[in-house]
């Protein structure tokens, strides 16, 4: 039976017209078939990709981040859980205005944050997005009570980084979501949404701490609901860091610097381990967890006290009189007889048309090197400096690694400054000999130099992590001390200066007397780094505005024989080093060496 018969009973005109109708229908069908072929045969591959993209989601199973421990395995950084608020725009459809009002009223959600998510609603309407991280118990209750007036808001339990102690903020850094450039870096191996360390140990040891993400390839339906798991890979837990820090010492130092600006660096002079590294003022590193809010960030960066600055490794200051022992070692290595020079101190020392002063107005009289260190006489060192010359002074400083970053294992360390002018005036040279003028140093650099004084001339690279251990307690890596260099000065020079430093604390009239601990043989030197010309009298000194008052330094080590700790204290605008910095050192050493046997052999004269 044919599909279409030719004989017909209807009139020929209508037949003709029906035939043209058939023709038109034919064209319709041909168009449909061609378009179908175009979609399926030509564009089919693209659409297949899109269909796959539609249904397959890769969910990362984040590995728990490794812990950071102090030398006694006390926690510096751990993981806890917290509640976060999430928003799914699709569920809040048509109620955005009301939602925004309620959120700002109940939770103090920042408007910018909400607006940003609202703007992106078309891109990810079914995906829940973070609105408010780590809410408090109180906020959780508020949420539960007001659930009905908060369409699209849900709460999730999430692992969170937790820093039990605030004082370690400058060492530890913080975590934030990886940025675009890090994601693109093939060596980084980061997945979208991963947290990466920013600054401090979190950044420096990120590769160990973060472990390896697991991944779950899931199939989702049109509403983003998981229908089945296509593939699965378990995460690898991050490794733990064992640091060289002593949390007790760190906390005490932080406490002693409270309400002051300054820094404390404590090193083990025998190997360069960092025992404590404190910068004040501090901030709470926990505010960065899950992403710092705009408001908190602004508050931090607009704070005139610069809490984000790590003064211990980034603050560069004139080291002042703490440089005198360094200059002395250099001078002695040049000629041991330099110890015997007697320089007359009248309180004033004219160089060309300028008059340089000693801190003691009436002068110290005739002093040798030992007494000049003990009393911190400037005039002696002006003269010694001029005798040695600028070039030698600068070389001595360089021997002690000033002007160089020592390569501590966290980032952003500053190198300090040694200026090598081609044209030196004698005044500059004299200034340099007392650590003023064209020299700047970080507290860490001073601690490294004093460690070298303490150990007889070895410069160690300061480091904070001694071991990396896996979650199941296997040692993955151990860090040995690194000797950066050996200072080529004779041991007698070191021995002599060490005895002077002992005198400066324990001898009568020593400027560091406030750091004296009977039986522990603290050896150290004060420093009072001038920011403006030394005031003429006490009246004038009192009138000096706070931000122009000198920085107070104290650098020391203890015990004298076989030193176990080298300490540098800096109090910004603290005035006299002997008054404001030395007592801090005393407390810290008493704490750290509390179990050390006392030794009363050394004679106090």
């Amino acid at each position, binding site marked *: 039976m044919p599909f279409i018969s030719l004989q017909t009973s209807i009139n020929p005109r209508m037949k003709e017209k029906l035939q043209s109708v058939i023709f038109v229908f034919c064209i319709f069908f041909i168009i449909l078939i061609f378009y179908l072929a175009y979609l*399926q045969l030509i564009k089919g591959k693209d659409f297949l990709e899109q269909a796959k993209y539609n249904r397959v989601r890769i969910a990362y199973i984040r590995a728990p981040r490794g812990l950071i421990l102090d030398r006694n395995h006390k926690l510096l950084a751990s993981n806890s859980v917290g509640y976060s608020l999430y928003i799914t725009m699709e569920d809040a459809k048509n109620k955005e205005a009301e939602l925004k009002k309620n959120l700002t009223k109940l939770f103090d959600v920042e408007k910018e944050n909400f607006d940003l998510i609202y703007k992106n609603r078309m891109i990810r309407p079914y995906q829940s997005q973070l609105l408010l991280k780590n809410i408090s118990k109180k906020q959780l209750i508020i949420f539960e009570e007001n659930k009905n007036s908060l369409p699209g808001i849900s709460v999730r339990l999430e692992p969170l980084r937790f820093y039990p102690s605030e004082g370690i903020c400058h060492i530890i850094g913080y975590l934030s979501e990886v940025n675009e450039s890090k994601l693109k870096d093939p060596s980084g191996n980061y997945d979208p949404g991963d947290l990466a360390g920013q600054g401090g140990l979190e950044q420096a040891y990120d590769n160990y701490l973060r472990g390896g993400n697991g991944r779950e390839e899931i199939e989702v339906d049109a509403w983003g609901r998981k229908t089945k798991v296509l593939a699965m890979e378990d995460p690898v837990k991050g490794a733990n860091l064992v640091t060289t820090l002593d949390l007790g010492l760190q906390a005490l130092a932080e406490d002693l610097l409270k309400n002051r600006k300054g820094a404390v660096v404590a090193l083990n002079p025998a190997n360069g381990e960092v025992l404590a590294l404190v910068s004040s003022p501090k901030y709470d590193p926990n505010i960065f967890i899950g992403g710092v809010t705009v408001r908190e960030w602004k508050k931090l960066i607009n704070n005139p006290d610069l809490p984000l600055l790590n003064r211990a490794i980034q603050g560069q200051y004139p080291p002042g009189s703490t440089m005198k022992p360094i200059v002395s070692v250099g001078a002695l290595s040049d000629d041991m007889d330099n110890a015997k020079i007697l320089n007359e101190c009248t309180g004033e020392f004219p160089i060309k048309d300028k008059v340089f002063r000693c801190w003691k107005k009436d002068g110290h009289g005739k002093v040798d090197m030992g007494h000049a260190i003990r009393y911190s006489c400037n005039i002696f060192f002006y003269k010694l400096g001029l005798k040695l010359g600028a070039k030698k002074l600068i070389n001595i400083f360089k021997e002690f690694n000033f002007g160089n970053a020592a390569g501590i294992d966290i980032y952003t360390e500053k190198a300090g400054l040694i200026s090598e002018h081609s044209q030196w005036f004698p005044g500059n040279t004299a200034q340099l000999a007392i650590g003023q003028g064209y020299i700047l140093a970080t507290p860490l650099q001073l601690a490294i130099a004093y460690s070298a004084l303490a150990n007889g001339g070895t410069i160690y690279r300061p480091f904070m992590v001694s071991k990396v251990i896996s979650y199941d307690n296997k040692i993955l890596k151990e860090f040995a001390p690194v000797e950066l260099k050996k200072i080529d000065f004779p041991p007698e020079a070191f021995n002599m200066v060490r005895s002077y430093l002992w005198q400066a604390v324990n001898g009568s009239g020593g400027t560091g007397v406030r750091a004296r601990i009977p039986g522990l043989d603290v050896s150290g030197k004060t420093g009072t780094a001038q920011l403006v010309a030394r005031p003429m009298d006490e009246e004038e000194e009192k009138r000096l505005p706070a931000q122009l008052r000198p920085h107070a330094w104290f650098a020391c080590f203890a015990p004298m024989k076989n030193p176990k700790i080298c300490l540098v204290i800096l109090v910004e605008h603290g005035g006299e080093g002997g008054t404001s910095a030395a007592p801090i050192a005393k407390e810290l050493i008493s704490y750290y060496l509390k179990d050390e046997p006392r030794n009363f052999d050394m004679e106090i004269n």
Partner: protein
Amino acid sequence: MKKNVFKNFDFILLGIVLILIAFGLLNIYSASFTFNTPGLPFYLKQLCWALAGLGLIAAIYNLNNEIFLNYSYYYYLFNIILLVLLLVLRVSTKGSSRWLSLGPFMMQPSEFMKFAVILALSRYLMDKEKKLKGFADLVIPIGIVLVPFFLVLKQPDLGTALAFIPIFFISVYLCDLPYRYLFYLITPFLSLLLFKFPALWFSFMVLLALIIYFNKTSRIDAWIVIISSILSGIGQPLLWNFLKDYQKKRIMIFLNPELDPLGSGYSVIQSKIAVGSGQFFGKGWLHGSQNRLNFIPEHHTDFIFSVIGEEWGFVGGFLLLILFFILIIRILDIALQAKNKFSTLVASGISVIFVFHIVVNIGMSMGVAPVVGVPLPFLSYGGSYLLNFLIMIGVLEKIKDEG
């Protein structure tokens, strides 16, 4: 007589219909097996409707030859009353009042209206002794179409309302309405579309005037064309406002689906992805991810072709279109062999209804026609439309039988 009951019966026509229904059941099953709907699953409900429809075919086949001719207007009036009733009762589901509740069943009178319009138009045009010469002769045919058109548009159901328009055009075309009048009939719409571009619109109006001048057109008709064109052009913004927001949106998004990839354009994009990703052989029955994971809304009803395209590929889609094409040819063959003008007009009207549904539905699934919601004959899930289409098949068999 009993012996020759099936002498003229078109087994190819019914065979194709049965194949399509069976294929439809397979796809409805595939489209809805992930659903959690209470009661009978969709494919079984559809099977019930199909069986009822086949019963109707048998019943119609046994009816008196003259019955449709005689009851055309009554059937039309009956359906108009249902539509009016519907608007009055405002039984509203899904934002429109398309459904009339009949005990346990819900029926959609607008679906039956499609065939009623064919009957009434054919009946009127058959009666006409004179040929169609001018607008005066078109008043009643236009009325027959426009009354249900507006009633359905008001529901609102743009797709079904639009289905009445091609019936009118094929009927007056077959009844020898001069070609220029076919053009005049669409001039208001062209004017409406072109009004946004003043230069084009002006040239169009000049062209229209020239056509009228050089063709024999009565003065009244000429004025009607000119004035209605000008009015529709100027009234275009008003008419735009007459459309529901969602209809405006659909038209705009049809023109550019990317305007709203997750809103109204979403179905089209997802449907295109489904059809395209089927490639040559398809992903296999029950294996279409777009379908199974419900990426396309209404994929067991209006978007059933996305399931077919995805799971049966080009092979399935092509064979389906060929089947449809044979079906259309069979219907037009019945039109050609019908023994009277009424039967020819009815069969032709049915063919154009089929083509309209196939082209608009598949075009919509492929993203080349607006999303207006018309079912794909015999394949989409739905009771009322299926019954109506099976009634039309029954009538075609009857026409064939009498021819």
